[in-house]
């Protein structure tokens, strides 16, 4: 039997068969940036991928290498149709289109349970990651998940998600990122705490901002500097 | 058991009451004091709800305040719901474990509704 492409592709996304994208919004950051938060398609994901070629080399800096390598793998799987119901949400500067952070997730362990993959900030110090993480949770609940499983790979990730969002431990659950202790965001906690206290952003996004972002996925000139405050040269030659 | 009450240090020369203890009177530099019991109720002068407590405090949020007892003021922890705290409110001192320092638990005054 010849193996054709169709046999390798995942089945259709059950809870979002039309692939309705996350409704875009924008968020005010501390420096006045209007960050546009929107789901990106496969072509756009291809444009973001080169960022990770540098990030995977950031050893000993808050787990950027491991998280970067995993995201890179997940994005490649996504553009090549090798992963089931993944979505990728980007945070961009609404004026320049510059990429500020990225989150990805999978919708179904089963239709009621989503699985959070990763969160990464390309520009530190503006709580970009905190805002984007909540946006990806919003998508899970908008599309009908009743809970989401989450793990952390870094101490700051643990502080941001497990502690700040008051997640429930679920040590018995095997998250697909490995056997690290799993936590869970339940619908009850989502509605009772996260939505009123930590979910922000306005819709609709003004046409102009959206236009800037759609037409221009601008990668930071030196993402290593944005993350570590040392230039690429300084970092990789040290 | 007798309830612990806040203590002040009264100068035996000029009568000035101090808290905390000093080796010499802040008014007259005299060295002898007697311990006097202070009222265990006072009013709240200022406070903060601290979201970043130091090591040895096993809570994510801690209310701290300054309480006026008339002759002296006390600094301490408040055992209240954050939404109940109000400047000028009346508070009463109770003796509680307040912090772990170098592995040992330390007690002090905690202020709550009378």
């Amino acid at each position: 039997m010849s193996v054709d492409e169709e046999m390798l592709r995942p089945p259709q996304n059950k809870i979002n068969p039309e692939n309705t994208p996350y409704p875009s919004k924008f968020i005010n950051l501390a420096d006045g940036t209007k960050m546009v938060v929107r789901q990106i398609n496969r072509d756009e994901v291809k444009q973001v991928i080169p960022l990770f070629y540098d990030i995977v080399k950031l050893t000993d800096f808050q787990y950027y290498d491991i998280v970067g390598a995993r995201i890179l793998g997940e994005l490649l799987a996504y553009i090549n149709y090798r992963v089931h119901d993944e979505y990728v949400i980007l945070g961009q500067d609404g004026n320049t289109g510059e990429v500020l952070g990225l989150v990805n997730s999978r919708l179904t362990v089963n239709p009621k349970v989503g699985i959070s993959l990763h969160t990464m900030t390309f520009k530190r110090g503006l709580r970009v990651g905190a805002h984007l993480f909540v946006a990806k949770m919003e998508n899970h609940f908008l599309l009908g998940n009743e809970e989401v499983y989450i793990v952390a790979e870094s101490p700051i990730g643990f502080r941001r998600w497990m502690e700040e969002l008051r997640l429930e431990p679920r040590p018995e659950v095997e998250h697909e990122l490995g056997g690290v202790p799993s936590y869970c965001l339940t619908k009850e906690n989502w509605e009772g705490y996260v939505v009123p206290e930590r979910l922000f952003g306005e819709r609709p996004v003004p046409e102009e901002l959206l236009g800037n972002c759609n037409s221009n996925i601008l990668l930071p000139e030196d993402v290593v500097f944005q993350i570590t405050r040392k230039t690429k040269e300084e970092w990789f030659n040290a | 058991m007798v309830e612990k009450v806040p203590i002040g240090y009264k100068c035996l020369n000029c009568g000035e009451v101090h808290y905390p203890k000093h080796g010499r009177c802040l008014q007259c530099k005299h060295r002898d004091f007697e311990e006097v019991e202070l009222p265990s109720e006072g009013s709240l002068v200022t406070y903060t709800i601290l979201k970043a407590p130091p090591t040895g405090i096993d809570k994510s949020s801690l209310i701290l305040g300054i309480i006026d007892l008339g002759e002296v003021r006390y600094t301490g922890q408040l055992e209240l719901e954050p939404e109940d705290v109000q400047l000028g409110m009346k508070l009463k001192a109770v003796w509680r474990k307040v912090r772990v320092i170098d592995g040992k638990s330390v007690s002090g005054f905690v202020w709550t509704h009378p």
Partner: protein
Amino acid sequence: MRDVAIIGVGMGRRWGRYEGSLIEMMAEASLDAIEDADTDQIDALFVANMGAGRINNQTALGSALIDYLNLFPAVGASIENGPASGGTAARIGYMAIASGIHDCVMVTGGEKMRVAPGPVVTDFIATMSHPQAEYIYGITFPALGAMLARIYFNKYGVTSEDLARIAIKNHTNGLKNPHAHIQQKITMEGILTSREAKINNPIIADPLHLYDMCPVTDGAASIIMCSMEKAQEISEKPLIRLAGTGQGMDTMAVHEREDPTFLKAVTHASDQAFSMAELKRENIDFAEVHNAFEILELAELESAGFFERGKAHLAVRNGETEIFGRFPVNPSGGLKARGHPVGATGVAQLCELVWQLRGEAGERQIPNNPKHAYAVNFGGFGNNVVVTILSRV
């Protein structure tokens, strides 16, 4: 007593996180000062540091730095006076020269604080508070700042927006300071008035937010002082005279002060420095003040006598304290933007005064050739304060 001049200043590389050792970091700043002064003929070195014994496992830093930089035969010591260590060490350096004991003194301040998690650093700073009456309760410096702010809000009508305005001004200045740890624009909408400000600028010690407070910073700063006579001989730069120094004290426990909004130690230290310099408040062209919390920027300006009690925030609202305002405050960005490595801060303030007075402050230069400048370095929570006045000769 002899007149004393500052002939060299330096701060090493940009503050923030330093990978090497504390001594290496202080050495970089010291070598910058040596280069600036164009002399390494130093008789004594005073190192200002608060907590290396506790957080970096190193004591006797004066000896260590002399050894590392081969400043022999210079003699030295470390000076610990909490966050006022820097100002205090400079004051002691001044005394050493004015008295005639030494001719040329280096003062280097440094603190490497980003070695421990937040609650540990917070606890280390809190060891300055009263051990029985404050420390055991979990008092932190942000908590003291917050309790002061609440009284200010209540008594004088200062608002969170006023504090945010000061932070925005200091961040704006920091963006122009290559040494500043924090070089980030912030806006009122982003940190206070938008809904998402709640996440961007969370409350740390109610009513104070993240952006009302200084960051935790690694950093060092160094100055070289000598007798005016010698400075006239060897220095090619505009001569900067240490015109006035003062130090004031207050009770250790904040609650023992009759009016906590009145920083008595700042008043006393300022009065001494002004009378020594034979200057009036209105002669001062700009100031660097110790804004570990933005509320302190207001309280210190008032207690120092630059503004009436409870009125400094009105001047801030009018833009008077901006670089191009009537009375610029913290052109460096202050502790808020430059950062606050506790032992280094008082020395860094003097570096900024010197750069401004020489006209070397680049993009953040205060216009119209400032001649007299003021710095206040605030130790404990205001129980030990050092004021320095510098004048261009």
